[in-house]
């Protein structure tokens, strides 16, 4: 329907130009824009609203927001469109797709468009943790928009029942394991009715696992995206900690834990603590029928979480005036007040410190303190796993993790196999 309306609008507009009634010297600049939806809530409605507001302030630019499925669907569509010569002007894609997009020569850096001091100040206004995945080789390829980190959600009622202090979430690995043991409930037959903790492992287990690896003191890759460290002893140790929760202390559900149903497991009180994205905050707030808390991920050698989520990219094949129009939109939507509003509407972390100083955000945090946890965790956050040939290198780790979690390989062998595969894939990028 919306598309029809837009088409009709475009048709009317072109008719008016034809009739010469429009005194404007030139037709509006068309900016098709792909966006994925990865969390609950009326995201398409919110984005369409932003687009309409932007057009009101900027006559002469026609924005076409196109909902394009999941992140995976969106990158597939965008790259296919690049190959057929008709890509969008801008798109929100995973921050980790940066190397892939550069290797495909699909995008242009923002640097060429940044000319004024105001623009330079704007570029410096984002949290550094979010820029790590947005810059490489001295250029800025992505602008942070819907960004997240992993946090731990816990059921305060379950904490009380287990005799734990509901205002003191686990701060270390040991505490999380101890708490989980107390929170795991079994029936007379020995079947578990409530698990202590769960870390999802379907689809993209590497992301949650990167949190564990960071907490154990190492990151999974180098900054140039040409090396991964899947078989470092600390990484194997991190996997062993996860496996022990499942096999030794039996406080974590066995096998593969589905990402999509993890929030539901939490609402149904099947699990007392869960790891998931801050992007789910608004979802949990509206659906949990008990008092819940949000905490930073527990530390072992240090605290840590990967960042996640999507950046804006500019496509190379677009005309310069289209790129300029898209750049204007990106600046507009990442202004402090809009970044704050987007964070409040979804649960994503507002991407710049001054967004947290706006009156709306201050009011929101005062009413709902968990919203600030992800922000406070940013000082410990680092870039999400991203390398050249990213999807394949990541799949090697995902396969290894799933093999270990389902018990077909021990931790060390699973990680060594993943490393060998990743090295094979990355060899041609090391010069």
């Amino acid at each position: 329907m919306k598309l029809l309306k837009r088409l009709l609008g475009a048709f009317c507009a072109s008719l008016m130009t034809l009739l010469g009634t429009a005194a404007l010297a030139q037709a509006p600049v068309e900016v098709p824009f792909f966006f994925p939806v990865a969390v609950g809530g009326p995201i398409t409605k919110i984005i369409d609203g932003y687009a309409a507001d932007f057009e009101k302030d900027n006559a002469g630019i026609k924005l076409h927001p196109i909902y394009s499925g999941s992140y995976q669907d969106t990158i597939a569509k965008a790259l296919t469109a690049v190959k057929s010569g008709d890509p969008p002007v801008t798109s929100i894609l995973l921050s980790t797709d940066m190397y892939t997009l550069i290797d495909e020569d699909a995008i242009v850096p923002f640097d060429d468009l940044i000319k004024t001091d105001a623009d330079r100040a704007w570029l410096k206004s984002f949290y550094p943790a979010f820029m790590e995945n947005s810059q490489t080789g001295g250029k800025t390829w992505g602008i942070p928009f819907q960004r997240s980190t992993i946090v731990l959600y816990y059921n305060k009622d379950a904490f009380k029942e287990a005799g734990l202090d509901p205002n003191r979430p686990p701060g270390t690995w040991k505490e999380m394991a101890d708490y989980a043991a107390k929170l795991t409930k079994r029936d007379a037959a020995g079947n578990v009715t409530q698990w202590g903790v769960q870390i999802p492992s379907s689809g993209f287990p590497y992301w949650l696992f990167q949190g564990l690896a960071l907490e154990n003191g190492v990151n999974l890759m180098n900054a140039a995206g040409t090396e991964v460290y899947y078989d470092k002893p600390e990484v194997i140790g991190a996997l062993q900690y996860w496996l022990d929760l499942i096999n030794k202390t039996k406080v974590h559900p066995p096998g593969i834990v589905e990402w999509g149903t993890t929030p539901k497991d939490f609402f149904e009180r099947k699990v007392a603590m869960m790891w998931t994205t801050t992007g789910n905050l608004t979802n949990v707030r509206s659906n949990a029928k008990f008092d819940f808390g949000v905490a930073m991920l527990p530390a072992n050698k240090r605290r840590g979480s990967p960042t996640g989520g999507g950046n804006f990219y500019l496509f190379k094949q677009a005309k310069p005036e289209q790129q300029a129009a898209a750049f204007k939109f990106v600046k507009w939507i990442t202004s402090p007040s809009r970044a704050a509003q987007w964070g409040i509407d979804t649960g994503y972390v507002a991407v710049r410190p001054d967004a947290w100083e706006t009156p709306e955000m201050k009011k929101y945090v005062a009413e709902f303190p968990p919203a600030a946890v992800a922000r406070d965790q940013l000082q410990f956050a680092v870039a999400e796993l991203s390398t050249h040939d990213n999807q394949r290198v990541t799949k090697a780790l995902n396969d290894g993790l799933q093999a270990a979690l389902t018990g077909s390989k021990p931790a060390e062998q699973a990680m060594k196999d993943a490393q060998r595969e990743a090295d094979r894939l990355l060899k041609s990028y090391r010069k």
Partner: protein
Amino acid sequence: MTRSANWLYGWLLLLPAAAMLALFTHYPAVTTLWHSFESTPKAARPAIFVGVENYRQLTDDPIFWKSLTNNLWYAAGTIPLSIGLALLMAVWVNGKLAGRGFLRLAYFTPTVLPMIAVANIWLFFYTPEYGLLEQVRSVFGLPAQNWLGSRNSALGCLMIVAVWKEAGFFMIFYLAALQQMSPNLAEAAAIEGASRWYFFRRVTLPLLMPTTLFVLVNAVINAFRLVDHVVVMTRGGPDNATELLLYYIYEIGFRFQDSAYAAALTIVLLALLGSAALAQFWFLERKVHYQ
């Protein structure tokens, strides 16, 4: 009309369908074959001819072999089961029984539903802890199972969904064939004193052979073609336990953007399906018709 005008007329009538087929089936198939001998074009590196390099890579790719064996198991599990079940259901709803129309509809419903919707329903059945299967399981006090999250059960779970989805569709063909069958045959057999099982085995089943061939060809194609539920339920996981050939091609082609390797895999799939179809038509066709 002259002979040549007739000839032209015939070709003109065939042209629209032939053009569509050439454009959307034959041309892509030929270009796929060509691309499978080239490297994947990247921004700075245009495609070059690499000969059988992609096929050599394929023989060393453990995930390809895994997806191939998975797919063969999947075919071996789903094809006989869904055909057998379809025949059973068709014979049953062909008989005179109360509520026959309703029963036929019930059996056919899974076919009408889109696979994506079906997969989402089954996803709930298989959910650990509070899924339907687990709720039934807990009544009997059996140990908990993570159906889709364990390497041993995930592929079996997908096979059940496929059988459930396909059997109703094949039933319709059997039902149509059964209704075509003359009642005289049953009456004559009854007069001769043939038992119902004997009649089914020696008369009904042979007369159904052409339908069985048709259904078999479709079942084989579907066993390699239907991967929608993989996308929804497991995405090939855990650790490639449910990786099927077509889904692997999708991953290579559109997630990894390696179009040349995907082309080589596609050729393998095409060769596999083509030879299966040929074998079915050439070898079975002769034995199918009841003379």
